[in-house]
């Protein structure tokens, strides 16, 4: 029983990270039609930025404080790199979808290689407040506390997004834009500002996922972003492109499935099971869980 509890919460923690990445991917694709292959690189850059800041802050204040400040730096850098990408690379290629995808492919490769070049492929130790490395007992299982933070972060982001969509004008614009981008323009609204905003939001969420992955795995390495990106893509497709709630549901399913299968069957089976799940979902319901290919 306690193993099951541990697996479940760990699976949710993993799913939380997938969701953070997937939410950005889903929004960017849903609103802009861009498959952002550089999203994993946003994660990596954000993670490394926060790690670098951790180093710079050495000796200042307590560890939790340093961790938080460094995390903020990471988030800011994530947002910055995403905004720059959108303005410099994506916007000039407006409506040329295939070039936009290709450009993100090139950027993803280049950024990841750059990080590897500067800091090598070796995993860097990620500073983590002690409390996060300790465990709490839940139903007899010893759960590492970082899982709660990951799940909490994902829930907070999900609620934040839903509130953004419901209560803000830009949220309204994004919802409408996901459905019919050109008609939004035909109402006199410059959707391109929404594009930049959505990229920024995706960048922050990806950086957050990168920071949390540093805690979860105990360290960061340049391939982290690419590795998680593939599963995030799978989550986005299973959930339904453009649907945040779909991504959330799919992230939970994928995270849990990976944990259960990797443990109860054998290591590595979980990943394959997720892939099979994708195949099955696409065969039965090509629009993903949310039903429509681009919907909210």
């Amino acid at each position, binding site marked *: 029983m306690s193993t099951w509890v541990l697996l479940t919460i760990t699976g949710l923690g993993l799913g939380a990270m997938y969701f953070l990445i997937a939410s950005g991917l889903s929004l960017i694709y849903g609103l802009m039609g861009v498959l952002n292959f550089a999203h994993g690189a946003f994660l990596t850059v954000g993670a490394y930025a926060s790690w670098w800041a951790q180093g710079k802050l050495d000796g200042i204040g307590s560890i939790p404080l340093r961790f938080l400040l460094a995390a903020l730096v990471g988030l800011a850098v994530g947002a910055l790199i995403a905004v720059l990408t959108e303005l410099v690379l994506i916007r000039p290629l407006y409506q040329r979808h295939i070039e936009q995808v290709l*450009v993100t492919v090139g950027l993803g490769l280049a950024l990841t290689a750059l990080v590897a070049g500067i800091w090598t492929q070796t995993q860097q130790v990620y500073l983590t407040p002690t409390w996060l490395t300790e465990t709490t007992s839940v139903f007899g299982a010893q759960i590492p506390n970082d899982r709660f933070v990951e799940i909490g972060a994902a829930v907070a982001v999900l609620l934040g997004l839903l509130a953004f969509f419901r209560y803000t004008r830009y949220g309204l614009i994004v919802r409408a834009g996901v459905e019919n981008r050109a008609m939004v323009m035909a109402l006199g609204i410059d959707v391109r500002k929404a594009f930049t905003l959505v990229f920024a939001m995706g960048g922050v969420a990806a950086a957050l996922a990168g920071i949390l992955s540093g805690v979860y795995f105990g360290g960061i390495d340049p391939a982290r972003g690419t590795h998680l990106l593939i599963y995030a893509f799978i989550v986005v497709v299973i959930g339904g492109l453009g649907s945040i709630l779909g991504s959330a549901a799919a992230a939970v399913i994928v995270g849990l499935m990976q944990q259960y299968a990797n443990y109860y069957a054998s290591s590595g089976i979980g990943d394959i099971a997720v892939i099979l799940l994708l195949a099955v979902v696409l065969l039965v319901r090509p629009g993903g869980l949310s039903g429509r290919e681009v919907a909210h």
Partner: protein
Amino acid sequence: MRAWSGRILSVAVPLAVFGFLALVPTFSVDIPRLFDGPLDTPGTLQILALCLLFGGVAMSYDLLFGYTGLLSFGHALYFAIGVYLTAIGLTKWEWSLPKTLLVVAAVGLVAPLVLGAVSLRVGGIAFAMVTLAFAQAGTVLVAKNPDGLTGAEEGVFLNVDPLPEFFIGVFNMKNLYWLTLGYAIVVFVVVRWAVASSPGRVWQAVRENELRVEVLGLRPFSHKLMAFVLASFLATAGGVVYAILIGGATPEVASANFTLSLLIMVVLGGAGMRWGALLGGILYTYLDQRLPALASSEQVQDLPRVFRTPLSEPLFVLGVLFILLVFFLPGGIAGIGRRGRRRGLRALEEAVKPGGARGGVVDEAEAGA
């Protein structure tokens, strides 16, 4: 008159090009900067052989992507199957060469048939994601190292005993070079013949407008599957040659990055054009092989760190070059001078266009661009 001379040229040019390439191992010519040794030395020949090999694999990917408009992110899987199955068969299972080739050929036909039949149930982005996922399954399988067969990180060191004498040993590199040249020629001829055939014309029609093909009563699905199987089989064949060429199997061939490299090769050279993919594959491989050497050269080492570090990473240079390419030369090298973008990439919009029929306002606005 012009058509006749066009046909002569279309045979003469490839003959000349490949004829020239066949003679390369006989040239005792030194090209400084570009290569470390003269053209007939094993080191240089191996680089050239790799260039030709990936040129061939890139052409197989172009069949799928450039001609049929199928944006697959999992083409590397079939190449990896060729590499690993050859290495494992010859080494771990101690098969003879003919038996290995037969088994690889069989798997190379059945695997894409099954996986393609599943993947092609969906189109566009979903198809891209499924192919990515299946390739990822391959990556996982290699890393998992079942029964110690795949060797995980270390790969598989090829047992060369079953191979014919003339492929073994450093001094026979020229024979390996000719083997890869042969592979490239075969792929070139097969792809050219295939796209000119009547199924091939349907593939190109599918790339332009699948709906119209369906309405005409030609079944897109079976045609796409045919293209998928052929392209994958050619990649698997390339995998066999690769395993023999470098003497084993290594995990990068099963990585997601590898398919992305194939994509870059095809776009670099020019998608859907006769010489595009081959050119792109050769150029990309050359840069990938030689950039580290360039990076450790004196000129680069003397540069301040902010320049030296990025330039030492081939993928960084290639990534940036690719971005520049997409902006300024989307038709690729072979597309220079032509209306490059219209040929190569415009048709591929179908593969990534969001949501299909999403309402007249979007589709036409995009079509008019």
